[in-house]
């Protein structure tokens, strides 16, 4: 039996008390420097997990199908080919029982269009400005992709470093893993919540930060690697992971019938089901058609059958043919966004993403409370942080309201978000009478009201379907929780751990 003093590091802890304090200091500096952007990326990331659900919610009239009627896929692809930008690559997502919708994207680097085909192949233009806005804000902050991706990648590294230093700076992190005290001093309360959420969601948060950092920094990594090894030719690095394009032959040629190709891919794939069809150089003799098929036990499709313009199989690959690196590359995005395993996984990701937002926000609150406890309060920063922590949900709710009310004006959303962000910071900074705790309750109610407004605008502007009802319920529950006062009712006064 051994009694452990409160300040002692547990046996085997690798750092001395002085080093722990130094690491904690670095944890604080890094957290403060990146808090706002980590919070924004985490908040939008949490919502981006539900991007497909949000897209279905904001466009309830988009067709929902589980299969195409005979000949409908060919009709849909032909229409997309005619309506889309010239020389576009077509990405066709096939419907299934688990994902009851199809989509066709006609993509060129300069322009892309997206449609949702119905069972007979008739196209409906996809107009999902809210989901697109959220994903783009999360992935690149609406900046040019290379710069935005780098900043988001850097944010992922800062988050990863904060998680590492957070663990190293808390010698009793495991012993205290269930030690959550509410109602005591503000700083202890905030610190407990920050540390407890941080430790139990740690593996998830590390995975998200690492995959996010890699996704964001990939352009930079490939660019520098290419400069080092291939005189700056990034195509050579990307070429290691992609099929070499077929020899150029621009003579016009019609696409082959698509259904026999899917049947052939299904036959070759065994238990794999066709999931996506990519058509490059459609309408030319050198067209290439790639069918990707998915298996239940794999994170991403790993069965690929490639056809030429006559419908002949050119290449056929299955999971056993892929090297580890190729399999990993495919899975990183899915693992990051939680777009595998259906709604249960998305809900788990959503809850843990929310936990990360709270960890980030409370980290700053702890620093502010520590300053206040020591008689060195920084009321301006307290107000500004409230402006960020509550201003961002408010800004995103306003973006949602605008996106629902004017879906054709998607360019407006970024201005709404910027205006709401600037407005919340200006008002918070100027409101000298704002008290951090009481004021936060008022701002929280404002966020709740904006969430209710979002639900209300939806009811006014859209017909309510099944996905609409689910999302409306989620919004109402969210608003209800925000309106509610924080729980302070004692459950276990004098618990052993206290």
């Amino acid at each position: 039996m051994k009694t452990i003093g409160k300040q002692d590091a547990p046996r085997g802890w690798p750092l001395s008390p002085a080093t722990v304090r130094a690491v904690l200091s670095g944890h604080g500096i890094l957290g403060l420097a990146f808090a706002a952007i980590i919070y924004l990326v985490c908040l939008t990331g949490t919502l981006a997990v539900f991007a497909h659900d949000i897209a279905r919610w904001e466009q309830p009239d988009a067709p929902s199908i589980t299969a195409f009627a005979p000949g409908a896929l060919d009709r849909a692809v032909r229409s997309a080919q005619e309506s889309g930008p010239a020389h576009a690559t077509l990405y066709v997502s096939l419907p299934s029982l688990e994902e009851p919708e199809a989509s066709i994207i006609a993509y060129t680097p300069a322009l892309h269009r997206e449609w949702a085909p119905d069972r007979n192949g008739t196209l409906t233009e996809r107009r999902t400005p809210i989901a697109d806005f959220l994903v783009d804000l999360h992935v690149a902050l609406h900046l040019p992709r290379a710069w935005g991706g780098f900043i988001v990648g850097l944010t992922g590294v800062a988050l990863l470093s904060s998680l590492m230093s957070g663990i190293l700076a808390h010698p009793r992190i495991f012993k205290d893993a269930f030690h959550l005290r509410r109602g005591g001093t503000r700083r202890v309360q905030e610190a407990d919540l920050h540390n407890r959420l941080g430790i139990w969601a740690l593996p998830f948060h590390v995975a998200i930060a690492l995959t996010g950092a890699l996704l964001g920094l990939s352009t930079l990594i490939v660019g520098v690697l290419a400069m080092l090894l291939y005189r700056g030719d990034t195509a050579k690095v990307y070429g290691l992971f992609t099929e070499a394009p077929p020899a150029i032959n621009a003579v016009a040629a019609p696409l082959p019938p698509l259904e026999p190709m899917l049947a052939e891919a299904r036959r070759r794939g065994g238990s794999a089901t066709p999931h996506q069809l990519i058509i490059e150089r459609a309408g030319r003799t050198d067209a290439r058609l790639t069918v990707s098929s998915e298996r239940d036990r794999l994170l991403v499709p790993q069965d690929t059958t490639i056809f030429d313009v006559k419908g002949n199989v050119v290449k056929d690959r299955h999971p056993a043919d892929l090297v580890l690196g190729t399999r990993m590359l495919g899975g990183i995005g899915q693992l990051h966004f939680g777009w595998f395993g259906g709604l249960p996984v998305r809900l788990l990701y959503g809850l843990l993403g929310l936990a990360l937002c709270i960890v980030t926000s409370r980290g700053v609150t702890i620093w502010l409370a520590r300053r206040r406890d020591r008689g060195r309060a920084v009321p301006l920063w307290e107000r500004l942080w409230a402006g960020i922590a509550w201003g961002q949900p408010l800004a995103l709710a306003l973006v949602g309201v605008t996106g629902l009310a004017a879906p054709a004006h998607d360019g407006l959303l970024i201005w709404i978000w910027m205006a709401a962000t600037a407005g919340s910071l200006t008002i918070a900074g100027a409101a000298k009478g704002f008290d951090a705790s009481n004021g936060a309750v008022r701002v929280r109610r404002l966020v709740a009201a904006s969430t209710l407004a979002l639900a209300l605008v939806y009811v006014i502007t859209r017909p309510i379907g099944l996905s609409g009802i689910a999302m409306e319920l989620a919004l109402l529950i969210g608003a209800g929780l925000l309106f509610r006062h924080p729980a302070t009712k004692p459950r276990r006064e004098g618990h052993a751990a206290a």
Partner: protein
Amino acid sequence: MAALVAVIGGSAGATLLRRAWADRLRERVGLIVSGWAVLAGTVLLDAAWVGRVKGSALAVAGIGVAALIVMFQGRTVRAARAGRSASLAPEPLEGPSKAWRGWLKALLAGPLGMTAAMGIAFCYATWAPGDPRTRIIIGGLLMPIAWALAMTWTLADQRLLRSLAVLLGTTVAGFTLAAMRGLV
């Protein structure tokens, strides 16, 4: 169903660990081992059931949420008191700091940490055994990890010249070795 298994297994494992760590006077080794074993078993079960990567990722997320539920259920609510407990927690190092040290630390944790991490990643990508595609992806994953470690270290270490020397040396050595070898 696999998500439900993860949440149930996570709740069971977390409950055992909570009971073990609630006892501040004794090391409850049996409960601790059982708790971790249940959590590990949950990951293995989901991995075997729905696929290695898919099942493990799902289990990690499910266990995280379950453990948070167990933690919130066992929260203690107490009256506000002066910061006795706060004073017992580790405190960060504080004190006057010169501006140039701040800028140098930012340089070390940022650009220099990044180039050193790239040096390590490219060195791995070029010198490690195996297929080049696998080496590039693992090298790519190493880069943010190494950069994050460099950030953690340089922000905590007061000996800035030592950090500067190590990061510069790692950058030069890593890039030189990678350029010498190439992607073979």
